[in-house]
């Protein structure tokens, strides 16, 4: 169960580079426990700190700059979140306080992970993302209306209805699906007859 995010507003930190991968968002060496928490410190560790393993802030990195440290929105480049499937990338962003990422495109697994963890993946054209970065002011994302507003700028975005519903209501996907247990059961009965080799027995 995640908190619903029908609306997000706040400072948007620009990190507009293509192909920002999940190894950058949270390096594997920062995944220290079998859990979903304690990850914010390792967020963007390779860029955020002066040396691997160090915690000395690199002043050049956007989240270390005054004004962006409390960003709730990240502006990214094309193919954001590519690479490893590690959901830790999204857990780290969420724990840091990020509630939405605006980018021209997302890698599919990362996008799915966002939806399940209360981060809105907003797809806008590259020019719009850059215009928001230039404007630099506060950004407001209305998920229900599917709009992004920033100073004089305003644009609408597409999001698939199932992702929208999950985010806006903070739904638990497993609970939702278990309501279909009747259909799952009858599918399996039919399927077991048609493709018995799929069903392995306990060894």
């Amino acid at each position, binding site marked *: 169960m995640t908190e619903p995010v029908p609306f997000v507003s706040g400072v948007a930190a620009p990190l507009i*580079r*293509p*192909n920002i*991968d999940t*190894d*950058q968002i949270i390096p*594997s*060496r920062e*995944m*220290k*426990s*079998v*859990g*979903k928490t304690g990850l914010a410190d390792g967020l963007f560790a*390779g860029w955020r700190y002066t*040396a*691997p393993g160090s915690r000395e802030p690199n002043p050049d990195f956007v989240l270390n700059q005054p004004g962006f440290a409390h960003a709730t929105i990240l502006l990214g480049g*094309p*193919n954001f979140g*590519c*690479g*490893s*499937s*590690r*959901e*830790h990338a*999204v857990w780290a962003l969420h724990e840091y306080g990020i509630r939405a990422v605006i980018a021209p*495109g997302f*890698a*599919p*697994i990362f996008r*799915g*992970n966002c939806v*399940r*963890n209360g981060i809105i993946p907003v797809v806008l054209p590259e020019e719009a993302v850059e215009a928001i970065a230039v404007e630099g002011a506060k950004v407001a994302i209305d998920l229900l209306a599917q709009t992004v507003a920033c100073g004089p700028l305003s644009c609408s975005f597409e999001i*698939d*209805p*199932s*992702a929208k*519903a999950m985010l806006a209501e903070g739904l638990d*996907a*497993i609970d939702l*699906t*278990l309501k*279909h*247990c009747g*259909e*799952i059961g009858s*599918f*399996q009965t039919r*399927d077991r007859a048609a*493709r*018995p*080799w*799929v*069903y*392995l*027995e*306990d*060894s």
Partner: protein
Amino acid sequence: MTGVQWTAKWRPPLPEPAPRTLFEKLWDSHCVARLDDGAELIAIDRIFLHERTGSVALKALAEAGRTVAEPARVFCTMDHIVDTRPGRTGTLVKGGAVFLTETRAAAQAAGIRLFDIDDPDQGIVHVISPELAIVLPGLTLVCPDSHTCSQGALGALAWGIGSSEAEHAMATGTLRMSRPKTMRVTFSGRLQPGVTPKDMALALIAADGAAGGGGYAIEFAGEAVEALDVEGRLTLCNMATEFAAVTGFIAPDEVTFDYLKGRRYAPKGELWERAVAAWRLLATDPGAHFDREIVIDAAEIEPMVSWGTSPQSSVGIGGAVPDADARELGYIGLEAGTRLAGVPIDAAFIGSCTNSRLSDLRRAAAIVKGRHVAPGVRALVVPGSMNVRRAAEAEGLDRIFAEAGFEWRLSGCSMCFYAGGEGFAPGTRVISSTNRNFEGRQGPGVRTHLASPETVAASAIRGAIADPRELAQ
């Protein structure tokens, strides 16, 4: 008006069923329900976990008081952070032991089959799953690992998910999915000698960009794909995720069936015959529609090598570093205009779920045989599974590598990625048969050049990036 004469025996022909793609057949046969929000509930036939991301899914599931619906269809391996040095007992990653112990405990509690560190079948998930026929044509298989798309090579719908989705799949036997768009990538013609499936994948991504396959389920087809053995097909499909695709797959054919027959979890006897009959119907029907098509002339592909920090930053081995983003060139430490062939390397790595199977090791060994790694170059071979390792040893490949100065390791992901354990020193230039050359992927500051196993082998011998065709023997 001349009417048709209807007789008792003659009936108008039934309308032809619309031609369908392999993807549509796989998807439709797994659709359990259409959901109100436009997504579909897709039945999941196999779930594979590994200790790095699967452990958290198993643990979270248990903590939520939920159970694994069908443990017999869930498998788990220890591959990502296990030590690969002979005599291993655990992991070299600081604080990593907890991932092994918690995975072990959670797998046991859930009643799922674990290929533990000392199991004779242990290995990298995408290597052992086909090896043991856990993945089969026509199945859906998911794993919290982005390279799960590799397994589409067998004609399955196999894709990487997050840990929360793994929990969902284990608890419900399904996933909620929006239907992806479809793409066909056709490799027409034949590959030149010395050119491999790895080069096909890099050529595609270099041509169309790392985001080029964004959101698509991709069928690889064409003469050059049909000519590949299953191991080569696994390499090609492995890189679909580097192309931002949801997954990649190849229609199952006689090559696939011959490969699977008799393997551990493959159906046997009469069930095998029935399964193969069903699998023969999976191939895309003539005239079926794809949302996008790409055609590449396989004969034009050269051995490829990457020069930057994305797989799209790759060129033919005869090429030069282009005039690119200063940040990317700065990280990789090369200037625009530098010819790739001849760039000195510090290390050579043969391994990973992309290129660590027996055929990969054979082709690399054929180049290395009777030669020696260049002075100052560290070279390693890490077989993808313990089965691959034993098979290679039975052919004497281990001795060829060892005599040439390569380390011969136990199986695992090893230095494909850096998790805080073993790694290369900052600044090291590595030629690597892996799939990702991201900043820091093989260690902070490490410079990765992606290439085929034979290109890695040739470069290790020369001490510089080298065209494997020049060292063919």
